[in-house]
């Protein structure tokens, strides 16, 4: 990310050519956004909030659905954007691989279900439940993290994966407390109490939801990007790069990692509360490992570490999944391509349902992305450095090895 607190855009001195000229040309704007980051965030989201609903009125988007459909879809995409930027804190910044992220999403959702449904008979307003859900998810993040964050990265991955399986399993099997597989239904709708003329959000009008998720994301963005450029954000990156060196620079690695975990979890908690309120039911099978892996794919494809890239990645992947592949079916079907022989198999593109190949496409995207463009579509500057290895990196690896040996008696 460029522009940390008035130091101006750090072009790194090595960006020649077009990129350099471009960044020089844009430098007043970049400098402004560097200084007034939060204002920029708010303005950006306001612009997004206006542009997105407008752009879908025009072809080709208008052909795929009405404006209301699109806006409803954007509101759903917002859930994944929120999840992705939360996971980005854990994976992209602190470098901890969390494969059970959906667990915190589930915890946020069930928190809302307990706080605002006929199931418990408690009816706390949605707005109050947002911070509560975030807090509860964060608390579980700490409870899980405290014993396990000492573990090495890969072990952490498997423990989080396990946690991601345990949480839905508990919601499924502790049926007296959670209504089991049927889930908890009839959750309260958010309400503004006649403010702006909006009472209950209801089920038919997507606009209040769209505005709400946009606001939640904007706030999350503001807070998270402030963290990125703070003492804490630097500590996360330092831990990701070299944990021992980070500890030797005075960083309490456990606390810092725990904070990353808790903040990531709380963002998922927010998403969970919002999603539960929008859907008005929670059931255990909404939170299986597909959710965790999808969000991880979004983070990786978007560009680990770059909060804007991750958000864009999540948005694109979600829209591709919910609109793109379906349209691809229609599109290819409309081309009227002839079928052809591929060895013993007859391939008829028109009959292929691309929705069936979502996993294949995900998988290929993940592999190719790692092989060809490991930093993702919209990489952060730092990640680009890290993932495109210079020749002396290999040397560095050797150096580390011998250091490790030296540490051994």
């Amino acid at each position, binding site marked *: 990310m460029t522009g940390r607190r008035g130091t101006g855009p750090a072009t790194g001195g090595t960006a020649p050519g077009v990129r350099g000229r471009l960044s020089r040309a844009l430098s007043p704007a970049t400098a402004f956004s560097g200084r007034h980051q939060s204002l920029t965030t708010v303005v950006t989201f306001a612009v997004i909030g206006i542009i997105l609903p407008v752009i879908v009125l025009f072809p080709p988007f208008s052909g795929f659905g009405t404006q209301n459909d699109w806006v409803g879809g954007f509101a759903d995409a917002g859930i994944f954007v929120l999840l992705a930027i939360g996971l980005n804190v854990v994976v992209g910044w602190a470098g901890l691989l969390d494969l059970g992220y959906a667990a915190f999403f589930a915890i946020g959702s069930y928190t809302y279900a307990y706080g605002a449904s006929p199931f418990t008979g408690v009816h706390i307003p949605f707005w109050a439940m947002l911070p509560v859900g975030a807090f509860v998810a964060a608390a579980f993040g700490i409870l899980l993290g405290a014993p396990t964050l000492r573990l090495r990265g890969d072990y952490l991955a*498997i423990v989080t994966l396990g946690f991601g399986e345990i949480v839905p399993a508990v919601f499924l099997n502790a049926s007296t407390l959670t209504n089991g597989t049927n889930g908890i239904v009839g959750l309260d709708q958010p309400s503004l109490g006649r403010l702006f003329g909006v009472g209950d959000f209801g089920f038919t009008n997507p606009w209040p939801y769209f505005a709400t998720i946009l606001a939640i994301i904007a706030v999350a963005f503001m807070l998270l990007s402030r963290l990125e450029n703070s003492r804490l954000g630097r500590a996360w990156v330092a831990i990701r790069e070299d944990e021992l060196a980070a500890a030797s620079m005075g960083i309490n690695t456990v606390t810092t990692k725990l904070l990353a975990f808790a903040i990531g979890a709380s963002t998922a908690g927010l998403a969970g509360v919002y999603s539960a309120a929008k859907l008005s039911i929670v059931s255990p099978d909404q939170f299986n490992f597909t959710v965790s892996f999808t969000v991880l794919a979004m983070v990786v494809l978007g560009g680990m570490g770059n909060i804007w890239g991750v958000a864009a990645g999540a948005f694109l992947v979600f829209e591709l999944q919910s609109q793109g592949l379906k349209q691809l079916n229609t599109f290819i079907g409309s081309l009227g391509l002839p079928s052809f022989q591929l060895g013993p198999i007859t391939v008829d593109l028109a009959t292929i349902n691309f929705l069936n190949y979502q996993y294949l496409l995900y998988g290929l995207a993940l592999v190719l992305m790692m092989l060809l463009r490991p930093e993702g579509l919209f990489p952060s500057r730092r990640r680009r450095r890290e993932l495109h290895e210079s020749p002396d990196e*290999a040397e560095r690896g*050797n150096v580390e090895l011998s250091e490790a040996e030296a540490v051994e008696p």
Partner: protein
Amino acid sequence: MTPATAPLGRARLSAGRWNLALGTIAALVAAYVIMDLGAGGEGQAQFINALTIGAIYALIALGYTMVYGIIELINFAHGDVFMVGSFVSWWLLTTIGFSGAITDPLLLGVILAVGFVFSMGVMGVVGMIIERFAYRPLRNAPRLAPLITAIGVSFILQNVIQVGVSNSIVTTPQIIPNTTLNIGPVSIRAINLFIIVLAVVLMAALQLFIGRTRLGRAMRSTAIDRDAAQLMGVDINTTIALTFFIGSGLAGAAGVVQGLYFGVTVFTLGFYAGLFAFTAAVLGGIGNTTGAALGGFVIGFIQVIAAVYGYGVWSEVVVFTALVLVLVFRPTGILGQQLGERA
């Protein structure tokens, strides 16, 4: 880089070996007693069930642990390699044209041998291909990168089977006759005995291979220090490919066993099997082949005990709780070596 990953090969437990043996026996006795209490007279049968699925987990876990030992990568696709292996054996047996038990012992032996060799070979090659294209280019990249390609490969394998073969359960011919053998006081079905013996033989062969052969030494030395091994003339690429071949081959064998024992396979099989097998590898101490086998049996017993007492739905929770507890108190697993201070 970790200073001291437990190397492949026999657990370096000179003093602890007796403890290990005694501990294992004590644990087995305890497990038997617990099962017998809950199983209402079928304790022995349940014990054999646990040993059998433990053996399957152990076979899969070996692949995880070998790959981890040598390149420190959680090969997330390994569970799906196992799944594909079960489909390969399904394809072979249905293509040859068997649908039921084969009673002629000679023919059965031949078919089994062909089936295992074929599946193990095919899956070994698949494993090598995966390594060559998805992991090798990333060998010096940050650790997250190959982990993510592994997840990607897992998606690809699942989807290929789902779309290309079947999106539902397929039935595999069970060619081993359903007979019960009585050996002294023990009554055991032929298939269970076959699986347990097969797993033990394969594991023993693996130990011998790693411990006694030149290639095994190459693997061990690569696991301990890749650069030093290279300097000593070990061909790293070949050695790592070989590791993948063996690990994936074992998963292929487990795939055949899956078909023979349960009679079905399905494209989603790999995820949970892989999850449990990897947990087994970590429980036992990853990088340690004996530990992986031990972990596999531990998980088998946990699952069966949970089922016996009517808590089958909680077995997943119990397994992962056990994993967290073991890692908290012994961060390197049951048989893992103590790592250096920093990891």
